[in-house]
């Protein structure tokens, strides 16, 4: 099987637009913060954050969180390269919107929630993902906002490619491992 394009640049653009409006519909602006999961969730989170500001004019605090040191697969051959964690505001008592690109086993999100709790106790954590691979979950974690649901087998990877400024070249593809 060759790589199959699941969403092209225009479709991603539409999905981001819809997700942003869904978020605006449901969040409490005065009390919400947006946090992107490193490395690639941050790119999606930045786009959604900008979109929400553009649509509403409300400044929502934005942060990044790295999950490396909270993962449960340390010493099991995974990458050690930690990325920047940057949360310059209090999350105690806030509603956190956690954003990642692909939800797969759920382990990254578990680690991200664990890392997040080192910064305080949010009243609520919600999850937004661009792609939900719903049949491969290993933990009881479900997204609150979903771009697109895909059914995949384990031997296939789903990758989101961000092509920098040229949004038209963004794509979500199936890659055979």
């Amino acid at each position, binding site marked *: 099987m060759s790589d199959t394009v699941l969403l092209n640049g225009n479709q991603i653009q539409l999905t981001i637009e819809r997700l942003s409006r869904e978020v605006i519909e449901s969040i409490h602006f005065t009390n919400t913060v947006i946090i992107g999961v490193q490395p690639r969730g941050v790119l999606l989170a930045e786009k959604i954050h900008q979109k929400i500001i553009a649509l509403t004019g409300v400044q929502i605090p934005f942060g990044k969180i790295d999950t490396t*040191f*909270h993962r449960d697969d*340390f*010493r*099991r051959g995974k*990458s*050690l390269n930690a990325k*920047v964690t*940057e949360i310059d505001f209090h999350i105690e008592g806030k509603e956190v919107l956690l954003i990642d690109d692909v939800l797969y086993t759920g382990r990254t999100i578990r680690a991200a929630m664990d890392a997040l709790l080192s*910064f305080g106790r949010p009243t609520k954590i919600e999850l937004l993902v661009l792609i939900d691979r719903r049949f491969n979950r290993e933990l009881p974690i479900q997204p609150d906002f979903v771009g697109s649901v895909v059914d995949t087998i384990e031997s296939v990877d789903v990758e989101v490619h961000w092509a920098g400024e040229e949004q038209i070249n963004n794509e979500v593809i199936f890659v055979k491992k």
Partner: protein
Amino acid sequence: MSQLSSKHVIGIEHLTVDDIQLILKTAVQFKEIINRPIKKVPTLRDITIANLFFENSTRTRISFELAQKRLSADIINFSSSSSSVKKGETLLDTVNNILSMKVDMIVMRHASPGAAHYLSERIDANIVNAGDGTHEHPTQALLDAYSMQEKIGDLKNKKIAILGDIMHSRVALSNIFCLKKLGAEVTLCGPATLIPKHIERLGVNVSHNLDETLQWCDVANVLRIQLERQNTKYFPSLREYALYFGVNKQRLDKLSKEIIIMHPGPINRGVELSSDVADSEHSIILEQVENGVAVRMAVMYLLANKQQF
């Protein structure tokens, strides 16, 4: 590059440039962690580390211990003064007994140069050298490099002076290896009696004129006069040493630029460094101590990953 090339950190001499860069890069993330409201990550919760200090230490031992606790490792502490070493047990026996209780990593300080290397050839656990006699003190050099980078950026072609008792200093030797590998220019400055002969072969300059050296450098790393390791007189008196080789405010005021002052501690105040400089805004001595925890977390984190399931 996301793995260390070695399962031990015995000395900077045997680390690659990539190893050093990986440790320094990882330490940046750990510094962020130790400044969080909850300064702890669960990463090493299944790792047991033994701190074997056969020689006295305050700063290094506390720094390692805190770094281990911040990583959630289980730790045991050992100091030779209250142990069976006093009854004549050999180093290898002591360590093997501790390892048989399922310890994964050893952090060791020992008065004999090469002690950590000797152990690394005979045991399986990861070893971190926390100072072996007058040989090396790798984590100190790494935290010094980290602190310098934080202040002046990439060390390539930067001018670093190491001042004072080079002969008895493991910090000096590790610093020289580390700074040279990172591409810095290094000048050693001190009385001729305290600078080993032929040290230029390591690619460093030697000077005996403190004022010239201070004017040349971007950073001055001032070393402690190690009176406990000096069994002969290397200079006539502490007062004379302070006069010719002590860094003080008058000397820094004469320079045409501002330089950064570092010291690995403990300071002999009024000898190699005057109090008004040690406590001034030029000095980053306390930042070095803070960075020490982050750098040691990075070293132990990366070493623990060498023990794959």
